[in-house]
């Protein structure tokens, strides 16, 4: 893939329109990498002039902050902000609601002020600006249910934007009984992704997957790499991986457009 870095751009004296913040999951996690690539294809189809930080990108510090390590978080934040400001970044887009939330809400008071988009917002904007459209019929009529990521939904009140995109896919979408502001967490947030859950009757992702299964879907759509992992595990736990796929909205759009 042709993915320019900010350093490449700088060397050519160019300033891209938007920085794509890939995030740690999007860079290293095998499943999340597919989301990253799908989104890059969308950006390319829309002829968006973008760049990534590449090896200069570091963890936003979100997981450290939620775990309670404010020191580590602020060290990460300040290092990242130094780099972003050095490149005079104005606009950032990311596929990870946790990075989105941190960059958008927690970096400004530390000196990092940017216009930050979640990829579902950015794709919507591209559509609104007439630069991109969802055309393919690949997913038409498929049964789909959308899981709201906490850090997109409740944390930032973004409920409709991803649904706007889903409507354009021509799928048959059914809401889970807990959705939008009453959605159940997938179980990964608050640094839980990186540890074993506390003792209980079941894991949170199993309960959340149950919610999804009740809608009898063929596709569980998400907008977060961590939700994706959690729901995928939940589907496997229920031995449904032959009937149900868990896909990020970016992947679905790429699929619809045969990218």
């Amino acid at each position: 893939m042709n993915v320019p870095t900010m350093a490449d751009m700088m060397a050519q004296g160019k300033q891209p329109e938007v920085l794509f913040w890939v995030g740690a999951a999007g860079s290293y996690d095998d499943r999340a990498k597919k989301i990253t690539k799908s989104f890059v294809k969308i950006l390319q189809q829309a002829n968006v002039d973008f760049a990534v930080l590449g090896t200069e990108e570091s963890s936003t510090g979100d997981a450290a902050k939620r775990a309670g390590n404010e020191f580590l978080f602020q060290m990460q934040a300040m290092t990242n902000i130094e780099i972003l400001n050095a490149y005079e970044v104005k606009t950032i887009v990311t596929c990870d609601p946790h990075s989105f939330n941190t960059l958008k809400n927690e970096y400004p008071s530390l000196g990092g002020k940017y216009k930050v988009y979640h990829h579902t917002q950015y794709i919507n904007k591209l559509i609104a600006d007439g630069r991109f459209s969802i055309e393919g019929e690949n997913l038409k009529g498929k049964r789909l249910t959308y899981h709201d990521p906490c850090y997109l939904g409740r944390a930032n009140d973004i409920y409709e934007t991803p649904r706007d995109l889903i409507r354009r896919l021509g799928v048959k979408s059914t809401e889970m009984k807990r959705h939008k502001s009453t959605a159940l967490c997938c179980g990964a947030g608050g640094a839980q992704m990186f540890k074993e859950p506390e003792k209980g009757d079941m894991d949170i992702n199993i309960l959340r997957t149950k919610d999804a299964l009740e809608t009898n879907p063929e596709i569980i759509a998400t907008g977060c790499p961590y939700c994706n992992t959690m729901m995928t595990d939940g589907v496997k736990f229920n031995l449904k991986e032959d009937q149900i796929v868990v896909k990020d909205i970016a992947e679905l759009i790429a699929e619809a457009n045969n990218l």
Partner: protein
Amino acid sequence: MEKIIPNIFFAFILIAGIGYFVMNVRKLIRNIKLGKDIDRTDRKPERWKNMAKIALGQYKMVRRPVSGVLHIVVYVGFILINIELLEIVIDGLFGTHRVFQPLIGNGLYGFLIGSFEILALLVLVAVIIFWFRRNIERIKRFMSAEMEGWPKNDGNIILYFEIVLMTLFLVMNATDTPFQEAGAGNVISQFIAPWFEGVSDNALHTIEKSAWWLHIVGILIFLNYLYYSKHLHILLAFPNTFFANLDAKGQFNNLESVTNEVKMMMDPDADPYAMPEEGAEDEVPEKFGASDVTDLNWVQLMNAYTCTECGRCTSSCPANLTGKKLSPRKIMMDTRDRLEEVGKNIDANEGQFNPDGKQLLDDYITREELWACTSCNACVQECPVNIDPLSIIMDMRRYLVMEESAAPQELNMMMTNIENNGAPWQYSQMDRLNWKDE
């Protein structure tokens, strides 16, 4: 002289009742002020709007329609019926009887009292349904471990209170012969009046007077009961929604004390042994995070006093729903209990806190609870009075990690990875762009 003895007695219990209440309110304010300062006075129009919508308008109550609508009935009924108190107080102090009736005329008076009577009946119905939900239907969110004992009784006591007060109000009207004869406003009590047929005029008058006295005494007791009860929310819901967080729920505060230290660490020119600037006051290094109530801010402490123990937070908490120990309601109740304990300690020691070897962490809230939170904000979203249990959980986690280095092992590994590799996993930062060629 004999005639005014009841009036003097009335004035006495009124002053005693209100006086004791004021004393407790001052204690309450002092306890809340034990918290750290936080500025919540910006964006005033938004704050007023929130208060009008959420506390007065009960906007979030109807997220659960059944309890929401019933609650609105009780709330509106209770407030409006208490307008009657004004008349009761004047009558009591000056020995008049239904002083407003001639003043505003039978028509308007009848309309007012008539609406109060209807409300009283509606409140009675609602309260009885509430009682059924708690005691017969045993709705799950009222049955958790933290609801045993006092919290459970507290919930019922208030229901009995309301049943008694509303009944007294109706009986008082029903046995008031002149009021019944006037036939204005006795929409409900006219059906109760026949129950007293055959009772002598004298006895009827005694019943009316007793109901009147019990009504006012009951209300004074109720007022003073508030401080000891979750029903404090009747008052605190207002300031609590006014001072609530207005930022995005995902936005956690950036500790300023940490910012200063991190800047020092990252600035190559900073002299780590430098003396604090002239006039700088913080010689005592700040404690990071919270292990006791005095480390929390006053809004968090007010939250604890405002909590209604309704359990809406807990019943939407993913950790709780899957059987983990965490219950956001318990976090709030623990905070309140500990704060009360600290307050009593201060009262007993002439205004000074005498270390008691206890703290909020471990003695009330366990680490297991704290680590089970996914920071999903469901509890914050659900709370009908804008309480933020998550902020307390986060401040306590901060204490565990930054003061005690007591994070679970896996989280320590995650944090080491972030520190060394810039990612929560053990990958080299140099491999960050590998995906594009895979």
